[in-house]
């Protein structure tokens, strides 16, 4: 690690913070544009304008938008994104109780997907054009092109309805053994992994193939290195940058999948929390969840960028 890398990483971080600031502005504007507000939603159609106005005043909804934005932003920075408008609980607590579940789901999906995808990608690059390579290629294209809700539905139909191996819903609260955990997570993770593995495997394969056509690979073969050695010690170190980049980018795609998967399997995570918040017009909760998703995405993209920078041998040492 040297100064150049540190400078580049700092620059990326700066850009990241700036992006988050812009995102917060966009989120705030869009949620403010939504028709109706929490006061109206709480009191229902029958409420008189006076009671609505009074409730608005207690929520602070009558203040000008830019003041509300600054207050909200200040709250976010200090770790207090306000209280839920629906049940009055602190948003931080609501998120705090759900976030570990989502992180657990994402972590399990990533732990399952990354090694599998790397193996498939590297092996199909080594045996390019073979039957294995072509089969994997076909499987990957199909997996990427089928949307998650369809995969999830098909999985439920097959494993829960027909075979009756797994419960159709994911009951995280009833996990007492490893077997329970497997049963609870099998289908959500499977659904998430399909697209993820396919995407990562294809990018890994491309990155390794790109390196395998480099002259130094021919040189290594002419030094008597066997194919496994050529791939593992020559091509792979040079492919790490693109692969890490691909992995981080693919994982950011998890964030989108998680919303669908959580709601289909009724998994008590952040995404279901956010969906409930949207239907309840619980603006502070929606905003905080949206920001959280953005931060997650930004962090993964940042990791992708930094891994690309760090793996460049010209910047190392």
């Amino acid at each position: 690690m040297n100064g150049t890398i540190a400078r580049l990483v700092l620059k990326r971080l700066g850009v990241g913070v700036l992006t988050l600031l812009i995102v917060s502005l966009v989120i705030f504007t869009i949620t403010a544009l939504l028709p109706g507000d929490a006061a109206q939603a709480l009191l229902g159609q029958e409420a008189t304008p006076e009671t609505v106005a009074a409730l608005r005043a207690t929520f602070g909804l009558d203040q000008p938008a830019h003041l509300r934005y600054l207050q909200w932003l200040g709250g976010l920075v200090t770790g207090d994104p306000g209280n839920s408008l629906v049940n009055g609980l602190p948003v931080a607590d609501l998120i705090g109780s759900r976030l570990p579940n989502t992180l657990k789901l994402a972590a399990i999906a990533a732990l399952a997907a990354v090694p599998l995808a790397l193996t498939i990608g590297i092996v199909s690059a080594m045996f390019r054009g073979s039957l294995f390579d072509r089969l994997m290629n076909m499987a990957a294209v199909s997996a990427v092109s089928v949307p998650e809700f369809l995969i999830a539905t098909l999985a439920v139909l097959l494993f829960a309805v027909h075979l009756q191996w797994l419960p159709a819903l994911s009951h995280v609260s009833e996990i007492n053994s490893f077997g329970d955990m497997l049963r609870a997570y099998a289908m959500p993770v499977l659904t998430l992994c399909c697209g993820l593995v396919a995407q990562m495997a294809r990018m890994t394969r491309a990155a390794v193939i790109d390196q395998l056509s480099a002259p130094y690979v021919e040189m290594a073969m002419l030094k008597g290195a066997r194919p496994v050695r050529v791939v593992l010690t020559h091509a792979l170190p040079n492919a790490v940058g693109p692969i890490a980049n691909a992995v981080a980018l693919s994982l950011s795609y998890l964030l989108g999948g998680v919303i669908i998967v959580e709601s289909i399997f009724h998994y008590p995570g952040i995404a279901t929390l956010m969906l409930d918040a949207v239907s309840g017009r619980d603006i502070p909760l929606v905003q905080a969840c949206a920001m959280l998703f953005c931060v997650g995405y930004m962090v993964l993209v940042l990791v992708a960028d930094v891994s690309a920078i760090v793996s460049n041998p010209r910047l190392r040492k």
Partner: protein
Amino acid sequence: MNEIVKVSGLQVAARNPQGEDVAIVHGADFALEKGEVLALIGESGSGKTTIALSLLGYARKGCRIVGGSVRIGDVDVLKLDQDGLARLRGRTVSYIAQSAAAAFNPSKTIMDQVIESALIHKTMPRRQAEAKAVQLFRELALPDPEGIGSRYPHQVSGGQLQRLMAAMALITDPALVVLDEPTTALDVTTQIEVLRAFKKVVRERGTTAVYVSHDLAVVAQMADRIVVLQNGQIQENGRTEQILSAPAHPYTRSLLAAMDPASRAAATGSSRQDRHDIILDVRDLEVRFGNGKAGGGKVVLQDINLQIRRGATVGVIGESGSGKTTLARAIAGLVAPSAGHVLLDGKALAPTLEGRTRDQFRRVQYVFQNADTALNPQHSIEAILSRPLKFYHGMTREQRRKRVAELLDLVRLPQSVAQRRPGELSGGQKQRINLARALAAEPDLILCDEVTSALDTVVGAAILELMAELRRELNVSYMFISHDLGTVRSICDEIVVLYAGRKVEVRQREARQEPPFHPYSHLLDTSIPMLRRGWLEEVTGRTAATLPALAAGLSPQTGLCPFIDRCSLRVNGLCNTTPPPLRQLAGGGSILCHRSEEELVRAQGALKLVTGEAA
């Protein structure tokens, strides 16, 4: 007989886009004795690299060894399975690739790669292999032999990498070393050092080697025997002396003829200099990269003054990184100079393309080095040539068709070429199209950037001849950029020598072969390999140890001679303290040097006597 390598009836086929097998090597036979160096020589496509690789039982993608035998010692290489081949490669036969910069893995240290074959084949433990590598580095005259192994490939120069690759090939003491154009990508002044290092280790270790090259002069220094190849067929196989002095085959004779710059110079004839008007005037040009405006950044060109007359050819020569391409790009408006002016016909040109008129674009055309990348592969030749006709001259479709036919005539290509795409043409034909595209604009000045560097000697010579004819017919001026002094000399009226962004010498055609030279030009001149055995041993005075000593600790001053670190005529207390004057020479031209004309003639005349007679 102590035959160590015997190739007989070797046949290699390549698969063409239609999926048919086409023979690219038709039954090659040759043999090598222990300790002998054999050269495979031929133009690109002659099959020399293909044959060399088959000595390792290897064929590139799309190629296949279909017949014959390659015996190394008692082993028939072509009968080995994958496992046997892996045991052979790097152990019995090792390979030195053309471009060391690409053949080294960028993310591993040099030492790891140099000793890798020793570790793969378990010839010795790591520590011993590292010690041997350091020993080889020393023998190959690499700087800092102890420490260079811990660096990464991008941290050393091209010439050093090429020598490091030699160490990599020799680490297992193989029975045969295959060198595939190992010096082609290097500057001549670097090439000579690498060749000397190669020759020293080959001789001291008694290595048996196959040396692949297109350059007969290089081969003359290295090889005991020469095999001449053309279109995958062996034309001639003989001792080096015989091939050079009494070539039997007509093709060998044509190769030798293309090597000789004198024959080409005769073909160009003299330039028309009846109108002495200056078409291009470059004044005090300076280019900086990076933070240019604030006086910071890296100076790439400095104090460049240059005039080109109508119908004249000015050659710009220098090694890679000397700023010659940047000069052309600054004139063309592709790089903005940080100071100075470029005047076209007395009128100042805007520094960048945005400020120039369409007519100014038309009058200065650029021909790029690599026709492969400069021509759009999706366009037909007619479309490529029509574009400037429409853009600059607004011709109608009918006019354009007629003009394209004329242009093809002009560059001596058949009319049938018009409907083809660049991919269907040979390298030489593509370069002619590249030239025709520039001519289509009817320019006053054509900037030619290394236009023959990517071509074979014979094809390149034909392009140069064509350019000389066009100059006579159209009275167009050229700025001809090259790293090859021989090429520049054969066609230019005036030669400008650049070194590290400074103009160190201007020389008129008439005075071209006689001293005084700037010490750098002289080094360049004497670095061009000659078609004479023993030349490599005669050229002396190149190593840092033989240079005159300079007092250390003087504060570095701006404007000092850029060549001071390599100059064999430098003067302590003068060259390292005072910027050199621009000396006007009696015979025309100028030299940026402290040494007087007499001193230079005395120093360089002596060497001339030794190397001169073979020219």
